């Protein structure tokens, strides 16, 4: 994945942050996805301004993990979010 890309939530996806019980609601198909702590941290960073590299840094700092582990977890999460059409790439133009 291109780590310099920036993402934000699709209009039909809403994120609610409750620390360890955070979740995303997909209004279009009535799904509710419960998130773990690291996923919640990533989702909370999806403001359309921080790119994936920035989010990898946040995760690494928070969990004191290696570059590889941090990047792997973030990429996996983003892949999943894209597959479920919960996030989209920010069009900077």
């Amino acid at each position, binding site marked *: 994945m291109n780590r310099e890309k920036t993402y934000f939530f699709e209009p039909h996806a*809403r994120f609610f942050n409750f*620390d360890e019980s955070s979740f995303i609601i997909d209004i279009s198909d009535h799904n*509710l996805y419960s998130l773990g702590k690291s996923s919640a941290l990533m989702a909370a960073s999806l403001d359309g301004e921080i790119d994936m590299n920035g989010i990898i840094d946040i995760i690494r700092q928070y969990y004191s993990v290696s570059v590889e582990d941090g990047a792997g977890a973030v990429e996996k999460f983003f892949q999943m979010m894209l597959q479920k059409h919960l996030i989209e790439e920010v069009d900077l133009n």
Partner: protein
Amino acid sequence: MKIAMVLPIFSEHSMRDYLGINLVVNFLENNDYNVECIDLNETLVTYLLSDQNLLSQLFSTRIAQAKSADSPYLKYFERYLDQICQQGTVSDLKENLFYDYFFKNAVLSNLNLDHYAGKSVSEIHQGLSEAMPILDDFLAFSAKDLTQKGYDAILISVPHIDQFTPGLLLGKHLKEEDFSGTIILGGSSITLLDDGVLSDYVENGYFDYFVKYSGEEKVNGILDHLKAGKPIDQAALNEKIYVDINTQTVDFSPELNHTSVPILYSRGCYWGKCTYCTYIYLDSGKFTRKDPEVLLSELEEFSGKPVRISLITEALTPKDARIIATGILDRKIKITWGSFLRVDTGFDAPLFELLKRAGCIFTAVGVESANDRVLQFFNKGYTRKDVVTFFEAAQKADYRFFQTNFMYGAPMATLEDELDNIAFISEFRKTMGNIAFFRLEITKKSALGRNLEEFNIQVDSNNMRKAIRVDNIPFSVQLDDKDLNLVERAYGAAADYFIRRDLNAAVNTVLEHPDNRLNISGMLLYKYHDGYFVGSMRNQIIKEIPEATFSNLESSKSMHVKDLSREEIMTLFELKILNTDQIFWDKV
């Protein structure tokens, strides 16, 4: 005279939780009438405990399901039932803290009248023996028992409208048993019903008289008339008459220890304009408060006692909150208390700090919504901006509410409107205690119910939820069932955060004292096939546990905190095998 005050099925609260019942019984006893209080909910449990076949029937469906799925719940239900039978009495169930769970999850889930939605009381009465023989037999048994005891008057108190139909069914059974005394219905739900509706039930032989508004003097008057053989004037019993609020006080007695004690502070509501509310019709429309000196003297009696005071008022005003909190501190009254608040920006950070210092830690706030469209529909008198200001003030004072209430299902609300509340809860989660969410019900007497057209409410008889409540209007909502389900799941997921947070806090408190003994009770340990399980007598959760944990829990009845891991202690809290209340009371 022989008099009984009866609380009909189905009430999740015990009789002493109802302030009105306490006040009427105290008043009658002060006037030399001896009143026997009979909680039919407890009588129902006693009735079920008396015959193992009846108890087994409550679990037959669940046991059959578990059997067909080869689920470890099969053995759980068998063990649970066995333990319940061994308890034998309501007082044993209560002493071991098994009663509430058993009543709500085993009794209420099986024996409610929900599937009679839309049916008349007469139809329910006629069909009950076939559809729900246990319940019909119980009502007949109760009526026979009360008749044999020869009461001169039976006062059926209906604090909640859900108890109205069960109260009527009892009245009918009493009449069929040729009960020779007088049957009188009262309680706040009766006050809110139309005189004509109640008179029809009198004519059709369900009861003899009904009492509206303050019951103390009216019931006393009925008993005086019965004793003297004088006729009773029903019209006088319908009149809006209130006793002096300064006489409606509660004295401390040792049996109140470790309970929540309701103490009356005001009648009516200082706002009184919410479109869904009917409680405002319980009073004359006038906001009446107890003299602060009378209230503080009443509270003084409870100083240093292990009780939680619940100050009964529709909504405490900021000014009153300041007067009461200051009075408590000035008089050095040591109590923990709570009350009900509405969102009012008069509650600023210094006031929340004052309330905290004065022991006011059980406050419930009815936010209902943080969406301006919905707030306007409910006519709450505040906007989202005010709600934010109110919670920011609490946050600044590090004040935590005990409970924050929300309401969903307004007919005009969209899914986005509803989810605004979830976003709001997430923003102020540190300031909220429990969150409770209720689906809007439109009652006939509320402003919404009286002005359906004005509020653009479409009556929809297919949307009959709990229509056994005679005062409800079924209505259409914008959201479909999937949307509503999503909203409920979102509230549930948000509520899960609060449960987790409190469990973590409880575990942390316990871990601070590794040498303390753990007070483990209500634990069901068992093996199923190759798995090891722990279940609970206090909620319907079972957990598969490692063999080592199983052996650890099985081996010692006197276990210390340090003998278990954090995860194991968390499991015991989740299953309520360790009780968070005990931690709370110890702290107090």
